[in-house]
């Protein structure tokens, strides 16, 4: 049996490619025991603890891919910190009755990449109840378009997508990706204009 180290997982996720999924699963396995700990420590239901843990793993993967995890702490400490924060958030939401996430902009929204002033302008324009329609229309833009957009959102760059989806160049991927976004936009606009 090969022992998987944190370093191997980090490198595996950063390396991308077909094996990335494998390392994501290994990351999930590695700190799986946190679910049980949260049940004991915070009195959270098993399903809730599992859901918080899933979100933790997804956030960690995203940060690794985006190179936001700089390795100043061990992966274990990093995961534990995020997981604890999420557990505390969950408990806080329960006690303050602020459980309706649907009404808010997601914590990892792109809007947070804008500076404060610009963000407040854009936030006012974003149509919050549009999200469900976009999700539905995503299934209507074709499988290849959908796969491409999902891969990009998963942190793969245009070059990696080109290699995976057999496109000639990264530029072709970018053009195709933006066309897919326009296609999606068109589908949504058709609905809203009706």
């Amino acid at each position: 049996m090969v022992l998987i180290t944190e370093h191997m997982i980090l490198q595996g996720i950063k390396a991308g490619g077909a094996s990335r999924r494998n390392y994501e699963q290994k990351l999930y396995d590695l700190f799986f025991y946190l679910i049980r700990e949260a049940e004991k420590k915070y009195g959270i239901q098993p399903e809730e603890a599992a859901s918080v843990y899933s979100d933790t793993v997804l956030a960690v993967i995203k940060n690794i891919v985006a190179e936001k995890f700089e390795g100043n702490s061990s992966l274990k400490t990093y995961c534990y910190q995020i997981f604890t924060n999420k557990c505390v958030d969950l408990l806080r939401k329960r006690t303050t009755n602020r459980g309706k996430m649907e009404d808010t902009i997601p914590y990892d929204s792109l809007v947070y990449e804008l500076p404060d002033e610009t963000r407040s302008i854009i936030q006012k324009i974003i149509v919050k109840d549009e999200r469900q329609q976009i999700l539905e229309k995503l299934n209507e833009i074709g499988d290849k378009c959908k796969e491409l957009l999902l891969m990009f959102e998963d942190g793969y760059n245009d070059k990696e997508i080109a290699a995976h989806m057999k496109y000639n160049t990264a530029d072709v991927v970018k053009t195709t990706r933006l066309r897919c976004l326009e296609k999606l936009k068109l589908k949504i606009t058709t609905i809203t204009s009706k």
Partner: protein
Amino acid sequence: MSDSINYIDNYFTGALSDIEKSDFEKRCAADQSFAKEVAEYISMRDAINEYLKQQKREDLATQHQELSTPSNSTKIIVLKRIAYLAAACILLTIGWFSFLRHSKSQLIAANYISENLNTLGLNMGVSDSLQMGITAYNSKSYTEAERLFNPLTHRPATAPEAIKYLGLTYLADKQYDAALKNFDQLASMSLHINPGLFYKALTLMERSEGTDWQQAKKILQQIIDKKLYGYQQAINWINQF
């Protein structure tokens, strides 16, 4: 493909310079229609991200299920491990009791030897050579005792005594195989009182290797059943096991 979407995408993928980024942000404030396009781009990317997260959550939920519910093969492995552990525990327990019995039989034998066989009596009527051998034995000169007893084992008149003393010399010198050979030879002799089997059992108890203890127990039972030499001692020992 519109230029706007390319421009917006470049901003969020970090392809713009600082000046270009600043221009982009200024345009968001000044151009309502452009700001709307940015908002639409963000909404789409956020929704795709949400879809992706949902997909991944489902994958992780499957993985969670697999990790939480042991599969049949895992169950078999767990059961096998339990079986191995139980077997190991049983073996350890048997081994421990066996060790205790062995060490106990060794202790009994050592006590008996120290109390009864450290010094052999110089009997009247035995030949001078036997007396010399016994003297050597009593002074723990076992090589000398062996040298003196050995030739006497071939003489009919001295053979039984010489074989017994030679066996005891080997026993005292911890040459158990040689001792057992002599006691076997003695036991096969037709004598009125024959300590051969008793000393053989004693030697096996003292050695306590492999199945020595079981063999010794069998011999002691034989001595008790046939009321042979040392049968009272044998009863005493058997009861202690």
